[in-house]
C-alpha cells in the first residue's frame, strides 16, 4: 500500500543549502518535491512534447504530491493517470518517445518499477543501439527510492544497482532541491532514457532553488565536491549525502577533515572528479543505502581501487545497507547507514600508518 509518512519526514530533515554556490536572488525556497514539481511544470510549459503520466499523477498529484496541480494547469492530455500497470507505463512511454514525445513517467515506489523491468532493460536501454541511433528514446523514468520514511515492505528499496548495471541507461540521483530541479530539467532534455531516482527521505527537505539558470545538459555526468576536506574522501549520493555531511561535521570536531563528493549521476560516472578527490586525500569511504553486494558502492570502490591504487593509504571502505531485504519501519534505523557507521568506517582507514 501507499505508505505516506510525509508528516514525519517533513520535520526530520533539516534544510541544507544547495551546494552549487550562493542562491541567486530569484531563488525561492522549495522542498525537493516542490522543486521536482517546478521542473516538470517548467518543462511542460516550455515543450509541447513533454508528457507526464503514471499512477495517480493526475487529480491526486501523485502519492508524494510531486505532480500536484499539473493536470489542472496543463490539461488531461499533458499529465494523466494510466491504468495500474508499470510495464504498460514504461512500454507505452517507449512508443511515445519513438513518436516524438518526451514522456516523463512516474513509478509509484521503487519496488513497483520491477514489473517494468523487461521494458526498461530490453527496450528503453537498447532501442538506440538496436537501431544504430535512428530511434532515440528521450524519456525519463522517475522513481522515488530509498528508505528513511518508515515505509513498509516494498516501499523503501534502493534499486539503482539494477539500472546502473544496464548499458544504455543514464541514472541520475539528486541530493538537494536545487539538483532535483536542475538535473530533472537536464534529464528531460537528455536524448536517451534517464532513470531519475528521487530520495524519498529528502522529498520534504527545503532549500533555496534557482529556477532561472538555463538548462545545462552537461549537468548530467558531473559529480560535485560538496564539502572540502584533506584527510579522507566520502563518495556518496542521494539521501546519504546528508549523512556524509553530518559525519564530516562530527569528524571535524574530532580533528579530521573530511571531503564529501556527491556523485549526482550514477551512470555515466564522473571518474575525473571522484578520482581527483580521492587521490587528494588518499583515503576513501563509499556510502550508500542499497545492499552492498554488487552495488553502486561496489563499483565506486572497485574503480577507486583500480585507478587510485598508488594513492591509497587504506582500503576503500563501504558503508551500505545490509545484504538483507530492507528493514521493517521499526528496525529501519538499524539498517540505514548513519553517521556513526560512517565515522566507524573513517576510523578504520589505517590512520596509524
Amino acid at each position, binding site marked *: *500500500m*501507499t505508505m*505516506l509518512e510525509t508528516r514525519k519526514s517533513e520535520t526530520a530533515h533539516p534544510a541544507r543549502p544547495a551546494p552549487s554556490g550562493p542562491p541567486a536572488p530569484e531563488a525561492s525556497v522549495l522542498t525537493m518535491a516542490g522543486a521536482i514539481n517546478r521542473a516538470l511544470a517548467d518543462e511542460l510549459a516550455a515543450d509541447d512534447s513533454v508528457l507526464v503520466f503514471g499512477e*495517480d499523477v493526475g487529480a*491526486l498529484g501523485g502519492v508524494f504530491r510531486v505532480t500536484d496541480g499539473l493536470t489542472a494547469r496543463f490539461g488531461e492530455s499533458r499529465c494523466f493517470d494510466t491504468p495500474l500497470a508499470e510495464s504498460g507505463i514504461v512500454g507505452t512511454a517507449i512508443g511515445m518517445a519513438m513518436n516524438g514525445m518526451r514522456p516523463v513517467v512516474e513509478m509509484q515506489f521503487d*519496488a513497483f518499477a520491477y514489473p517494468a523491468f523487461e521494458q526498461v532493460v530490453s527496450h528503453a536501454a537498447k532501442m538506440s543501439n538496436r537501431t544504430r541511433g535512428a530511434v532515440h528514446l528521450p524519456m525519463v523514468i522517475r522513481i522515488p527510492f530509498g528508505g528513511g520514511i518508515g515505509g513498509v515492505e516494498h516501499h523503501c528499496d534502493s534499486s539503482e544497482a539494477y539500472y546502473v548495471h544496464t548499458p544504455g541507461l543514464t541514472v541520475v540521483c539528486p541530493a538537494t532541491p536545487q539538483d532535483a530541479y536542475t538535473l530533472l530539467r537536464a534529464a528531460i532534455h537528455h536524448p536517451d532514457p534517464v532513470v531519475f531516482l528521487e530520495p524519498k527521505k529528502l522529498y520534504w527537505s527545503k532549500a533555496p532553488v534557482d529556477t532561472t539558470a538555463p538548462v545545462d545538459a552537461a549537468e548530467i555526468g558531473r559529480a560535485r565536491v560538496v564539502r572540502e576536506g584533506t584527510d579522507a574522501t566520502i563518495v556518496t549520493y542521494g539521501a546519504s549525502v546528508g549523512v556524509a555531511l553530518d559525519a564530516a561535521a562530527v569528524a571535524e570536531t574530532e580533528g579530521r577533515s573530511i571531503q564529501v563528493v556527491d556523485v549526482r549521476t550514477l551512470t555515466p560516472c564522473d571518474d575525473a572528479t571522484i578520482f581527483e578527490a580521492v587521490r587528494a586525500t588518499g583515503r576513501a569511504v563509499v556510502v550508500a543505502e542499497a545492499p552492498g553486494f554488487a552495488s553502486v558502492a561496489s563499483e565506486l570502490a572497485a574503480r577507486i581501487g583500480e585507478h587510485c591504487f598508488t594513492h591509497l593509504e587504506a582500503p576503500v571502505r563501504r558503508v551500505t545497507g545490509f*545484504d538483507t531485504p530492507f528493514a*521493517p519501519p521499526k528496525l529501519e534505523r538499524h539498517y540505514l547507514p548513519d553517521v*556513526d557507521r560512517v565515522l566507524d568506517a573513517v576510523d578504520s582507514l589505517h590512520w596509524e600508518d
Partner: protein
Amino acid sequence: MISDDLLPRETPVQLIDEHGTAVSDPRYAPPSTERLVEAYRALVQGRRVNDQCSALVRQGRLAVYPSSHGQEACQVAAALALGDDDWLFPTYRDSVAVIARSVDPAQSLVLLRGDWHSGYDPKEFHVAPQATPLATQLLHAVGFAHAATLRGEPTVVLAMCGDGATSEGDFHEAMNFAAVFHVPVVFFVQNNEFAISVPLSRQTAAPSLAHKAIGYGMPGERVDGNDVAALLAVLDTAVERARSGGGPSLVEAHTYRMQAHTNADDDTRYRAREAVQAWVERDPLTRMQAHLRGAGAIDDEAEAVFAAEAEQVATALREAMNAEPELDPEDLFRFVYAERTPQLESQWRMLRDELDRAAMAGTTAGATSPGATEGAR
C-alpha cells in the same frame, strides 16, 4: 455456444436489496438464515476492527491502515466461503478477511504497524501473507492450487485483488495459468471503483471486469459486493465448482471504498462527497441487519451480544497495539536464508558491536542519532 456460459450477467447477482428485502434469483438460492447470522456477526466485528484500526492510526499506534470500511461483506464472505483446509491469498486491504479466518487481529496488523513484514504463520491459518505488490499473489495462489491438484488434495484457493490490480500483467498470467491447468482457484475481485485516486473508467473500458473471464475460458460472475447473502451464494458456488474439478472462475464484487485509500490519502482531491454519500445507503451492515431483524433472526439481545464481542476484539487489539513489543535487530539477519551466510553473520556482528558500544555509552540500544553519536564514540 460455450461462451455464453462464461459471460457474466448484465446486472450483478443480488439476493438482499438495499432495504433488507430478499430478492429471488433463478440460479442462486439464499444461504441459510443461520449462515447469514454468522455472517452478520462477522460483519459487525469486521466493521469494528476497521474503525478501531483507523482510530489507532490517528493515535499514532499504527503506521498506516487501508480500511475495508464498506467492503466488509466481501471480506466476510471470502473468509466464510472457504473450508478450514482451503487457502486464502489476501491483499493489504483484506485484514478483515484475514481476521475472519481466525488470525489474531494483532498478528494481522504487524505489517501495518511496522514491526515486521507479516505477523502470522501462513501455514497455521492457511492464509498467505497479505500481498502488497499488486496482483502478484494471484500467481502464487494458482501455483499453490496446482500443487494441491497434483497431489490429489481437495484444497480450494480463493485469491483476492482489487479493480486496479486487474490491469497488471500478473492478473492476466494468473487467470490464464489457472484456466490452462484447470486448477481450483476462485479469483475474487473487489471492484471498489477506485485504485487510490484512479476511477474504474480509467482502469478499463470493458463492460465489466467479469467479462475478462471468457478470454481465459472460465466463467465470470458479477455480484452485489455489499450483499453478503449474494456474495456467499456466488462464492459458495465458485468454491464448489473448483472443489469438484470444475476449474477456476472469476467473481467480481461491486462495492465501494468508503474511506480514503489509506489514512495518508486525501480523497477529496479526486472524488465528490456526494458520490461517497450515495453508497452509505448501500451499507452492507444495515442491509443485513434490516433483513435479519425482519426475518426475526436477530433481536436487540443478539445485537448486543455481537456488539459486545466486537468491542472485546477491539479492546484486545487496542491493548496489543498499545504495548510496545521488544524488537530484536538480529531478526534482520535471521530469516533471509534458512542458514545465515558468512556475509550476513559478519554484518550482524558489526551491528551488534555498534549496539554494544551504544549500550555501554548509555544511549538506548540501536543505531543512534547524530547528536547521540558523539557520546558513543
